C-alpha cells in the first residue's frame, strides 16, 4: 500500500541504523508511549536491531489495557441486559472484568457486536429502533473525534436509542505521572504520532522544558520508528532536550483544528482511574452536560460494582516502564493472551501480549 511500504524499505532502515550507531555514545532509556508503536517495534524486531546502549521501555498508550476495571464491569452489566445491543471495538471483548468478559456475556446470549467504527454503531441504532444501542467509547485523543462524531451524527438523526459508555484518556497527564514518579527511568519520549495528528504537539514543549527531556513525534512504520529513535538519541547526546517532529507527513504543530473542535463540543476534561496505574487527575474526557442523554452511565443505573484485580499481575509497573514482562512470575504461564490476568496482556497492543506473541530473547533466557 502506498505510503506504508516505502516506510518499510530495508536499505533505508540500514541507513538510519548506521547513523544511530555512529551517534550513540551513552546508555539511554527511551519510552514509546503508544501501544501501536510497541506492537510495531516487536513485530519488526526493531528493539533487537538497536545498539545495546539504547533500551526501549513501553508506555501506557494502550486504551484497551488502561480502561478501568470499574468501567469494564459496567460494560458487562449493561451488555447483559436483554433490550441492549452492546457495540465495541474487537479488542475489548477479551478484557477481563471482575467476573467474566464481553465474550462470556455474548456466549450467555447477550447482544454484543464488534464494530470497526462508532459510526457503524449509530447505523445499528438506526436499524434497531426498539433496542438500546450502546457503544463502548474507549480510546486516546486519536479515537475521540470519531466517538464525538457518532454522538453528533446520532443527534442529527434524532436517535433516542444511542448512547456511549465513555472511557477516554489523554496522553500528556500520563507523561507527567511517569516523569514525576520517583521511580522514573525514562530519559526520552517517542510521542504517539496519531494522537499528535489530532492534537498537534504544541502542548509537549512545556513537558520537555519542565523535565528536561526530549520528545520526538513518531510514526508507526519501521523507518518512522528508527527515525524517531535517531532524533531522540541526537538530542540526548547533544544535551539539548526539546520537541521535534519525525512524522511530518501526518502531523503538524497545531494538529487538526476541526477535529479538536468536535472533541471540545462534545467532551470535557475529567479525572480518570487508569487500570494498572491508578488515579490521574484531569487525565480523560467525559460527555458535556448538554450531551448527557447520550451518556450510557446515566441512562443505565449500574450499582454495586465491586472490582477485584489479580494479586500477582505487575502490569502497573510495566505500563510505567519500571519492569519488563519476563520479570513477572505469571508471564506466559498463568497469564497468556488466551487467559490474561491483567491490563498489559489483554490487548494485542499490550506490552505483555506483544512480548508473548513475538517471543523475546529475554523470555527464553528467563525460561532456561
Amino acid at each position: 500500500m502506498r505510503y506504508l511500504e516505502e516506510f518499510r524499505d530495508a536499505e533505508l532502515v540500514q541507513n538510519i541504523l548506521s547513523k544511530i550507531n555512529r551517534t550513540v555514545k551513552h546508555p539511554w532509556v527511551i519510552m514509546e508511549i503508544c501501544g501501536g508503536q510497541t506492537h510495531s517495534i516487536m513485530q519488526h524486531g526493531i528493539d533487537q536491531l538497536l545498539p545495546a546502549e539504547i533500551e526501549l521501555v513501553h508506555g501506557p498508550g494502550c486504551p484497551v489495557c488502561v480502561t478501568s476495571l470499574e468501567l469494564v464491569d459496567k460494560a458487562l452489566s449493561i451488555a447483559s441486559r436483554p433490550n441492549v445491543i452492546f457495540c465495541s471495538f474487537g479488542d475489548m471483548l477479551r478484557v477481563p472484568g471482575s467476573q467474566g468478559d464481553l465474550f462470556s456475556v455474548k456466549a450467555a446470549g447477550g447482544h454484543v457486536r464488534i464494530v470497526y467504527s462508532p459510526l457503524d454503531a449509530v447505523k445499528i441504532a438506526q436499524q434497531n429502533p426498539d433496542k438500546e444501542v450502546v457503544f463502548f467509547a474507549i480510546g486516546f485523543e486519536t479515537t475521540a473525534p470519531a466517538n464525538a462524531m457518532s454522538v453528533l451524527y446520532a443527534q442529527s438523526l434524532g436517535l433516542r436509542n444511542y448512547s456511549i459508555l465513555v472511557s477516554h484518556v489523554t496522553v500528556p497527564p500520563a507523561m507527567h505521572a511517569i516523569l514525576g514518579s520517583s521511580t522514573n527511568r525514562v530519559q526520552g519520549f517517542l510521542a504517539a504520532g496519531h494522537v499528535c495528528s489530532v492534537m498537534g504537539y504544541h502542548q509537549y514543549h512545556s513537558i520537555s522544558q519542565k523535565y528536561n527531556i526530549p520528545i520526538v513525534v513518531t510514526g508507526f512504520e519501521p523507518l518512522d520508528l528508527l527515525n524517531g529513535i535517531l532524533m531522540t538519541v541526537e538530542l540526548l547526546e547533544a544535551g539539548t532536550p526539546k520537541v521535534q517532529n519525525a512524522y511530518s507527513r501526518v502531523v503538524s504543530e497545531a494538529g487538526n483544528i476541526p477535529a479538536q473542535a468536535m472533541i471540545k463540543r462534545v467532551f470535557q476534561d475529567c479525572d480518570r482511574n487508569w487500570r494498572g496505574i491508578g488515579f490521574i487527575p484531569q487525565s480523560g474526557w467525559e460527555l458535556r452536560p448538554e450531551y448527557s442523554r447520550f451518556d450510557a452511565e446515566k441512562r443505565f443505573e449500574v450499582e454495586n460494582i465491586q472490582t477485584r484485580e489479580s494479586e500477582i499481575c505487575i502490569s502497573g509497573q510495566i505500563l510505567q516502564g519500571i519492569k519488563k514482562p519476563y520479570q513477572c512470575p505469571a508471564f506466559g504461564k498463568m497469564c497468556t493472551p488466551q487467559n490474561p490476568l491483567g491490563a498489559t496482556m489483554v490487548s494485542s497492543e499490550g506490552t505483555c501480549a506483544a512480548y508473548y506473541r513475538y517471543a523475546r530473547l529475554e523470555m527464553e533466557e528467563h525460561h532456561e
Partner: protein
Amino acid sequence: MCLAVPGKIIELFTTTSMKMGKVDFGGVMREVCLEAVPESKVGDYVIVHAGFALNILSEKEAQDTLAAFRELEEAEFNLDNNEDFTTLD
C-alpha cells in the same frame, strides 16, 4: 488501537449532511467520514482511524522524508571513502 492507515479518496458524497468519502486502501474500499478534513478532495491520501479521517497526508513531506533517508546513505558512502583514503595515506 491508535493505528491509522493511509488511503486514497476515490469519491466524495454526503450522508445526513456529513461529509463522507469512498476510500481505497490498496484495493479494499471503505466508506470514511471526512468531517474533520473539510478541504479534502478526490485523489488526496487521508490517514484513517476507526472509519474517520484524522488528516490529509502530505505527499510532499513524505517524499522529502524518504529523500533525507536516502541522503544518509550517500553521506555514509562519502564518509567511508574518506576513511579509505585516510588509510591509504
